[in-house]
Structures are given as structure tokens and as C-alpha cells.
């Protein structure tokens, strides 16, 4: 069981700056994120898109913003738990007990949800029958590529994941690659490689087709694909892989007894606290009258939520407001020399 003053859910810009604010005022914190990297939407959705409305930064990309926020956290050794989703939150006296998908457990008086629009999950096939085979012979990610050796694998999608795996698995498996249109959105060199392998007969390429049926008793045996002209093909297959990118879902957060408004969490504007004492929500995931979904608003919300955490983490101390320019205590925490 990990004990911490505050647990932050979400390693996007708001979560990162909230961690900074907690450390500045002398609280410790840890961060959990379902993605495999730090940065949230900025890294997952628009690493290369320029952002123009971060105060004092005329222009930066999502990736640059993330790098700078991480750099700002350098003086503090913050523990990140990536690839983990917070699944359970329950009250235990004055603390919250938190459990992640990997089984990591925390006890903390404060939880700050900086979850953006929820956690990123793979987008799935619309076809209901696919659920029967999910995690048995139908997957949305590859954990162990060896299971595909000498088998027939049908890969759906047109981005880098689909193309990379088609190329990789074609070495030891029979690969069908199916995509809903002729153009692929992967890196040019991979697209060329796929076409080359298709010409050599090492990848069976089906474009303008989409999955329309799956069948098999216990394991998958056949799949059916249909194109826009309603032409149907049946393919024998042992496995299906679907790569349609990630979607954002509120996920388990919906079960924690918080007041929700559509996909957002209602908070007050003093502490950014939810209807549950000690659980705060900041950034895109919170809502209140006048809420603006801007990164800069998330920074402000995180700064105030961090101060609110102090009260529950240090019930016998009084929080004293200090400036980073003049406070010796803060400079010590930052590891910089005082004047």
C-alpha cells in the first residue's frame, strides 16, 4: 500500500502542473495514467499541432509543452504509474483507498482527477458478435506476437499500428490486411512496404472492405467482409486484430459516486472539490458555471486544488501563502540557491 498526500489521476498538462503546485507547497504526490507515456491528449492526439494560447508562450506544440512541464517537475522526484488505470476508489475513515488495473494500491486523503475526457481505450469493431471472441482470438493490441506463428491473422485498420503489424507478422504468419479505403494514413515507408509485400503475395490486401461477420464455434474460424457495393468475401482466419485508434471514455470514474454532468464532473470553484470530500477534479474533466476548456484554466484549477489538499494532508498545520520569487522554503524545495 503506497501512502501519499495526494494522488493525481492523469498525466496531461493539468495533472503535471498540479503535481508541481503540490510539491511547491510541500506535499508529496504520485501520478497514475492509463497511457504508456506522459502528456495526455497533448501527446496522444496532437503532439505536432501548435498551441497558441499558453500564457507567455507564443507558440508551442503539444510535445514541447509536455517536455517543458516535465522539466519544471525535475527538482521533484515524482513517481509515475503509467499503463495503469484507476479502477476502484473507496472511503476508508479519513482516507481514500485506490486500486489500479495492475493491482497497485494507494491510501491518500486527496485524489485529484485530471483525467481530460476520460481514459484512452482502443476503439472496437461495431459488430456485436466480435465480443464473443474478444481477448481469445480477436484483439485490439498485441501482447505476445508468438501466438500468431504459422496462423492466419486478419488485420483491420489503415494507420501505423495496422501497417506495422501487417509487415511484422507477415514474416511468420499468413496475413490479411483489410481497410475501408485505398489510402493509408501510416508512414510512407511502411505504406510502400505493405504494397511491396502485397505484390509479392506475402500480404493479402483488401481495400474498401469492412468487417461484416465473424463465425466459429469456440475459436474464430471465418470472417466476412463487405465493400461499399455490397460485395461479400469470406476469409478463413485464426485471429483478428483491429487497430482503429483510441477513444476517450470516462470509464470507472462514473462509479465513484461523483456528481456528473454529461461526461464531466461537477466541482466548486474555491477548491475544485467534487461532492466527495477529498476528491477534486481539474482540467477538461471538471465543470462549473463559466468553465472554459483551456489548458490555462487547468493550471489555475490545479493550483487551487493543491492548496485545498494541504488542509486534509496536514490537518495540524496552517498553510502559508508564499511566492516562489522570495520564499526560502520554496527555493529549498526547488533545489535552487536563495539570495
Amino acid at each position, binding site marked *: 500500500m503506497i501512502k501519499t498526500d495526494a494522488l493525481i489521476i492523469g498525466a496531461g498538462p493539468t495533472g503535471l502542473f498540479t503535481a508541481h503546485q503540490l510539491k511547491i507547497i510541500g506535499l508529496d504526490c504520485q501520478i497514475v495514467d492509463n497511457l504508456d507515456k506522459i502528456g495526455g491528449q497533448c501527446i496522444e*492526439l*496532437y503532439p505536432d499541432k501548435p498551441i497558441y494560447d499558453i500564457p507567455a508562450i507564443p507558440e508551442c506544440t503539444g510535445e514541447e509543452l509536455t517536455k517543458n512541464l516535465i522539466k519544471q517537475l525535475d527538482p521533484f522526484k515524482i513517481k509515475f504509474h503509467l499503463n495503469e488505470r484507476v479502477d476502484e476508489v473507496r472511503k476508508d475513515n479519513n482516507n481514500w483507498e485506490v486500486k489500479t488495473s495492475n493491482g497497485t494500491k494507494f491510501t491518500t486523503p486527496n485524489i485529484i482527477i485530471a483525467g481530460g*475526457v476520460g481514459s484512452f481505450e482502443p*476503439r472496437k469493431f461495431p459488430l456485436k458478435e466480435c465480443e464473443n471472441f474478444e481477448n481469445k482470438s480477436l484483439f485490439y493490441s498485441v501482447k505476445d506476437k508468438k501466438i500468431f506463428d504459422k496462423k492466419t491473422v486478419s488485420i483491420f485498420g*489503415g494507420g501505423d499500428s495496422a501497417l506495422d503489424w501487417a509487415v511484422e507478422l507477415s514474416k511468420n504468419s499468413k496475413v490479411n490486411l483489410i481497410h475501408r479505403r485505398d489510402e493509408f*494514413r501510416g508512414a510512407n515507408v511502411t505504406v510502400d512496404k505493405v504494397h511491396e509485400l502485397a505484390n509479392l503475395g506475402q500480404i493479402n490486401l483488401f481495400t474498401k472492405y469492412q468487417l461484416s461477420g465473424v463465425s466459429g464455434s469456440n475459436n474464430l474460424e471465418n470472417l466476412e467482409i463487405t465493400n*461499399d457495393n455490397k460485395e461479400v468475401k469470406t476469409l478463413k482466419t485464426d485471429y483478428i486484430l483491429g487497430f482503429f*485508434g483510441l477513444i476517450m471514455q470516462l470509464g470507472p470514474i462514473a462509479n465513484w459516486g461523483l456528481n456528473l454532468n454529461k461526461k464531466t464532473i461537477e466541482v466548486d470553484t474555491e477548491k475544485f472539490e467534487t461532492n466527495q470530500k477529498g476528491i477534486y477534479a481539474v482540467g477538461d474533466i471538471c465543470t462549473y458555471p463559466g468553465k472554459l476548456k483551456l489548458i490555462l484554466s487547468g493550471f489555475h484549477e490545479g493550483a487551487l486544488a493543491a492548496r485545498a489538499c494541504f488542509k486534509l494532508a496536514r490537518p495540524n498545520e496552517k498553510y502559508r501563502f508564499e511566492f516562489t520569487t522570495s520564499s526560502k522554503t520554496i527555493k529549498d524545495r526547488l533545489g535552487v540557491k536563495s539570495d
Partner: protein
Amino acid sequence: MAKITYIENNGKEHTVDVQNGLTVMEGAVQNDIPGIDADCGGSMACATCHVYVKDDWYDKLDEKSEGEDDMIDQAYDPKKNSRLSCQITVSDKIEGLIVHLPEKQV
């Protein structure tokens, strides 16, 4: 200003006036029409404002934006007449546009 009709997957129709310059996505969000999530707020990064444009309208609209099809690849149940409603700008030209909403966005 253009009248736009959004038809939910269950057949329920909503016809609203949407100001020129807004997007078809914003028209839905501002009028609380269910079925368009628009998680990313119109930056063409999420494919949760996906709509099907009624056939005869599909060719009348401006061409898809660069990268729009890449995002539609990731939409739920994409079809030939799929568009992202955040990439359709409202003008007098599209008076009477009808869009169908998919069964769900995610």
C-alpha cells in the same frame, strides 16, 4: 443561417437554425442535440462528431478537409457518406442539410 436537420439513430428528428460560420457539430452541441459527443472540441482529433450525410447532399458539400478521412477511419461504423460534422461549416448554401447520426460515437 441555415436550417439543419439532425436525425438520431432511433429516427428522432431535430431541425434547428444554425448561424453561418458555425460548424454542423457546433449547431448540434449548442442546441443540445444528443448523439454528437465532440470530445476534442472541433480540432479533428477524435472522430466523435461523426455523421452520415444524406446522399444527395454529400456531393454538394465542400470537399473533406485534409486528414478528415484519416480520422473517419477511426470513427464508429464509418460508411461511404461519413463526415466529421466539425469540418462542415454552415452557410446559406447548405440550407436544408440533413445528417443522420450513427448508433453511437464511441
